[in-house]
């Protein structure tokens, strides 16, 4: 299976980062859900968006080891930035152009991420948790209080994006929203995948593993952390912008604390440090929510809590960790027989 592993280590490293069949299968399944669940397109779009948010947390938590409970701030800022663009552009290009909206959403969130990244460079995990949470609460309060701009607790009304690339307008059934969300999510994911498989990505793992060692190697640890925190914030902002554009609405709910908590939960469900964990976690989380919500709406959180406790206690690396453990067991059996 592994080509030339001892003699050509460079080739082996490259081989390891190639696209696998199950990755292609994952994206093919994502695309084909358009045809399989035509009545659930809005839900599926939301899953992509939540997944992308969780992937952005994976960059900081799973790869750089930065614990954060405030990614919702960047998501919300992106959501409102895209919403305001679409609203004041009044449904016509160029200002209401959705891609321009995402660009602005990402830039604004990235700028906020850059500025606040300096707050998470110091201190322990607990400090970081509290600092990111604090920043998220501040942003949430600013958004709800600035009624003239954001519409306060009523949300941002009249969000109208112009058609994607001037051709595909957002429809009531969420068809355009589906493909738009899927493609943007895929492009961002592809970007993240390149990032974590690069030398830069490896250096993040070095920081996560042992910052002191990384420094004695000569690594500018803080610069790297600022960079990855900013990149993750940008991607969170893009995912927030996507949600506003596809739902034609921005509400304080999008900056609320539970966004950050849900996204972190989704990542832990799926497994952090694999990049796909966020996406798979989002699928499981939303499908569970939808399914259990239909049977016993009042006990939804009970089941989320139970699954969370079981996963964290008994499975290392969430759902992906579970799948990998199963695969290892099977391949070992195969070798034995």
């Amino acid at each position, binding site marked *: 299976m592994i080509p030339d592993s001892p003699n050509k280590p460079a*080739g082996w*490293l490259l*081989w390891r980062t190639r696209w696998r069949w199950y990755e292609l299968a994952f994206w093919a399944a994502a695309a084909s859900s358009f045809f399989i669940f035509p009545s659930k397109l809005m839900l599926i779009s939301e899953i992509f968006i939540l997944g992308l948010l969780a992937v952005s947390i994976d960059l900081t938590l799973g790869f750089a080891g930065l614990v954060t409970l405030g990614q919702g701030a960047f998501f919300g800022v992106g959501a409102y930035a895209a919403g305001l663009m679409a609203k004041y552009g009044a449904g016509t290009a160029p200002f209401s152009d959705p891609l321009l909206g995402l660009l602005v959403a990402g830039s604004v969130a990235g700028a906020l991420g850059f500025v606040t990244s300096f707050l998470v460079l110091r201190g322990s995990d607990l400090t970081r948790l509290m600092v990111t949470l604090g920043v998220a609460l501040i942003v949430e309060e600013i958004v709800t209080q600035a009624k003239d701009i954001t519409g306060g607790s009523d949300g941002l009304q009249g969000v109208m994006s112009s058609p994607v690339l001037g051709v595909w307008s957002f429809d009531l059934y969420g068809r355009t929203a589906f493909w738009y969300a899927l493609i943007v999510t895929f492009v961002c994911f592809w970007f993240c995948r390149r990032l974590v498989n690069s*030398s*830069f*990505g490896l250096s993040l*793992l*070095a920081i996560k593993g*042992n910052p002191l*060692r990384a420094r004695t190697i000569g690594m500018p640890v803080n610069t790297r952390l600022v960079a990855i925190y900013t990149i993750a914030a940008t991607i969170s902002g893009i995912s927030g912008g996507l949600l506003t554009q596809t739902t034609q609405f921005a509400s304080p709910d999008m900056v609320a604390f539970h966004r950050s908590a849900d996204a972190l939960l989704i990542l832990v469900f799926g497994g952090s440090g694999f990049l796909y964990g966020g996406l798979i976690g989002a699928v499981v989380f939303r499908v569970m929510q939808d399914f259990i919500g239909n049977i016993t709406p009042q006990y939804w959180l009970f089941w989320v809590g139970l699954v969370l406790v079981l996963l964290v206690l008994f499975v290392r690396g969430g759902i992906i960790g579970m799948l990998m453990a199963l695969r290892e067991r099977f391949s070992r059996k195969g070798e034995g027989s």
Partner: protein
Amino acid sequence: MSEAPKPVLETCALRKAFGGITATDNVTFSLPPGARHALIGPNGAGKTTFVNLLSGVLPATSGEIYLNGVNVTNWSVRDRARAGLARTFQINQLYADLSPLETILIAINERENAATSWFRPLGSRSDLVDEAAALLAQLNLADAMHARVGSLAYGRQRLLEIAIALASKPQVLLLDEPAAGVPEGERDQVLDVVAALPADVSLILIEHDMDLVFRFAKTISVLVNGALFVEGTRDEIARDPRVRQVYLGEEEIAHG
């Protein structure tokens, strides 16, 4: 021999106090290029503190440190590493979940400023990967190149500690008890690697193990209670009655 070549590393009245305890006491020291220098002393003499001061892990209370004549006293760990000062740790500071190849690549990438490359996959700089593989081969770690570091035998992990330091092509290398905790059967491997280190690297070896010190060091400093007690060539130190007393004294206490 101390006056002729320009020292690569110097300290001037270096002092470190933790509250009322002086761990490094007024140490003035210089290291010529290509040195094979051992720093010895009884337990608690402040050897590791001294290494932490040199490498920047701890800030000095007073005094100065010069690297190639440049005052680096206030430089960060990272800047000193970039300037050619590498170190190993007495307790392994490794990446248990990465492979030795990846570990060495991290260090080489930093040295070559290749670590900011975010778009090309890790293996695309095959020159750097080949260098990492060659370094691992040199340290007899080639067969474990792709293994999980955490699964390696302790002696091999110690070798990897040294390999990381070498990957940055340092001018000065601080080895903090390279053989500490290595089981008898794996010790020779570590000693051979230490003996075979490139001659142009100036070396400071912190060691408890007198076998290793006398086999390997050409010059020796003895540190007692944080202060330089005596300095000299290997033979001078071996004959010095005061040194013997320091060590025997310690032994008497230990046995009494």
